[in-house]
């Protein structure tokens, strides 16, 4: 069920109406029923039910046992066991092909004539999210930062809270515990603000992301015809497509939760204003970053192995450089895991793992030298132009990596990169050629204006919530903006299914 589909809209309206009319005490049960319906929507079978039950029971039972034997060795054993079961089902359902491909490569390398065929696994929606969320639940109970949930149905709601199943954000039990089970009153203020956030999310997806998608799909689908400047525009638009789709989904999710009365952590903070890739990842998919920091990176860095390595390296390479080696090793492991989490294919590991790791290490190593050079030749690093250059550089580096995120294979990624080097600048200047790749002049105009609006809103959000600012304005201005947003979605939204620009509503005006 897509977040921008009519079915999802109807589903949410129905769920919210029932939620707010039943007695407060049982409102969480409505959320649970909605979540279970959403989880098994179009995918209800014994096989998928068993998948969900395995994760739920592992988290529920081991959570209670970890707490019961708190501060003993048993507690650690139960924690590890619970985590292993959840990881095993995740690997089996999502990463079997990654292992098979790797095995095939290795056999091929040694000229062994074995070739595994790929398998199809019917995994539940949101498996990557709820698996990690339940792992964090077990670790938090183990660390004593929260108490386990004794009611299995409440535990099931925490695992399956429906808005976050498709795109996150990653939540922590201690932050959700109160909000999730407490029956909330419908507040007019939350309803208005939630709806505005949902509209903004829908605008991002239907007006910007879908439109970018038409161009990107056309170009990447036929690199023989569309290359050079076409590819460059597609690479840039793909990053915007990805961002608006992902952050738009998060806006819809946060909006729904705000109406219910559940606070979720922010997942994006104007990432394209970041000066470096390091800063970019503090503003992009923030909750995944903090999940990995708290549950992978910190324990790794604090482990005896890394600490011993730290000491050895400091003795050999000196204090400053010595500590970098174990740090980079932990970061490499973490970034590889980020890549793997994004999808069970090497393209994802390269795009959102290894390349990001290389960027961050290079920034760390070259940063001080670049600062010195800037000082020496007198570049004002506080000037707007310099910050713009830094943001553009970050955007382009990230866009380059995302070539592999979109590519069907590493070979396809290299093919896309090669196609950039075809010389055809007239594509951008002759006023006709560019408009043959899925988007015409009109669409490009809509897209450019929408992207400018997006960047203005993102820019404003850096100094506090844009909605708060909007709701402080006078009623006329406030509603003018809201109506403009609604009409922009209705008139300029791309509604998929056999997209035919000529048949579009706005063409008839």
């Amino acid at each position, binding site marked *: 069920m897509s977040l921008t589909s009519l079915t999802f809209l109807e589903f949410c309206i129905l769920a919210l109406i029932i939620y707010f009319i039943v007695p407060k005490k049982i409102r969480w049960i409505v959320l649970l029923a909605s979540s279970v319906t959403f989880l098994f929507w179009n995918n209800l079978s014994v096989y998928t039910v068993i998948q969900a039950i395995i994760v739920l029971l592992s988290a529920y039972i081991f959570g209670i046992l970890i707490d019961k034997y708190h501060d003993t060795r048993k507690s650690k054993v139960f924690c590890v066991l619970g985590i292993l079961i959840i990881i095993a089902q995740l690997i089996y359902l999502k990463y079997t092909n990654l292992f098979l491909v790797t095995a095939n490569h290795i056999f091929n390398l040694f000229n062994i004539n074995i070739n595994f065929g790929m398998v199809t696994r019917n995994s539940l929606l949101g498996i990557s999210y709820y698996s990690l969320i339940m792992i964090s639940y077990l670790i938090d109970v183990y*660390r*004593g*930062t929260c108490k386990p949930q004794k009611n299995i149905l409440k535990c099931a709601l925490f695992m399956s809270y429906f808005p976050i199943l498709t795109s996150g954000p990653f939540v922590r039990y201690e932050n959700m515990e109160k909000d999730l089970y407490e029956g909330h009153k419908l507040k007019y203020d939350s309803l208005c603000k939630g709806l505005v956030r949902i509209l903004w999310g829908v605008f991002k997806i239907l007006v910007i992301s879908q439109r970018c998608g038409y161009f990107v799909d056309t170009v990447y689908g036929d690199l023989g015809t569309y290359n050079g400047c076409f590819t460059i525009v597609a690479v840039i638009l793909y990053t915007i497509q990805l961002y608006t789709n992902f952050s738009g989904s998060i806006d819809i999710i946060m909006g729904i939760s705000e109406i219910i009365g559940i606070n979720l952590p922010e997942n994006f903070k104007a990432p394209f204003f970041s000066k470096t890739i390091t800063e970019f990842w503090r503003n992009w998919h923030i909750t995944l970053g903090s999940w990995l*920091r*708290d549950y992978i990176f910190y324990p790794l*860095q*604090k482990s005896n192995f890394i600490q011993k390595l730290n000491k050895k390296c400091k003795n050999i390479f000196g204090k*400053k450089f010595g*500590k970098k080696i174990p*740090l980079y090793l932990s970061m490499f492991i973490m970034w590889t895991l980020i890549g793997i989490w994004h999808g069970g294919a090497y393209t994802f590991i390269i795009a959102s793992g290894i390349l990001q790791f290389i960027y961050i290490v290079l920034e760390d190593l070259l940063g001080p030298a670049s600062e010195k050079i800037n000082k020496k030749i007198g570049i004002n690093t506080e000037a707007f132009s310099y910050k713009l250059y830094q943001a553009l550089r970050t955007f382009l580096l990230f866009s380059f990596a995302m070539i592999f995120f979109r590519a069907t294979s590493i070979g396809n990624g290299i093919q896309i990169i090669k196609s950039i080097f075809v010389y055809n600048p007239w594509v951008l200047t002759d006023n006709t050629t560019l408009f043959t790749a899925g988007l015409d002049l009109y669409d490009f105009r809509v897209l450019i204006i929408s992207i400018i609006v997006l960047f203005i809103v993102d820019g404003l959000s850096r100094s506090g919530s844009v909605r708060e600012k909007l709701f402080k304005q006078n009623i006329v201005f406030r509603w003018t903006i809201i109506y403009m947003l609604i009409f922009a979605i209705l008139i300029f939204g791309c509604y998929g299914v056999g997209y035919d620009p000529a048949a579009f509503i706005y063409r008839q005006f």
Partner: protein
Amino acid sequence: MDKSEIYERLNNVFRDVFDDDEIVVNENTTSSDIEDWDSLEHINLIVAVEQEFGMKFNMGEVTKMKNVGEMVDIIISRINK
């Protein structure tokens, strides 16, 4: 060991980890007050503090600590055990 002594020793640890002799911490100091105190350096700081005071933070504390004041409270609760 009283609080002022702990802060004195913490100052030395912070100065050593972040290579900055000017650092003076107080209970309200947070990672945003010290330029290099990011998530990458956080663990190095934690380990250095553990070594200085001969105690261990648990992972829950490592991730939840909000400022130096909370760090000092944990140190006091451990060394007084």
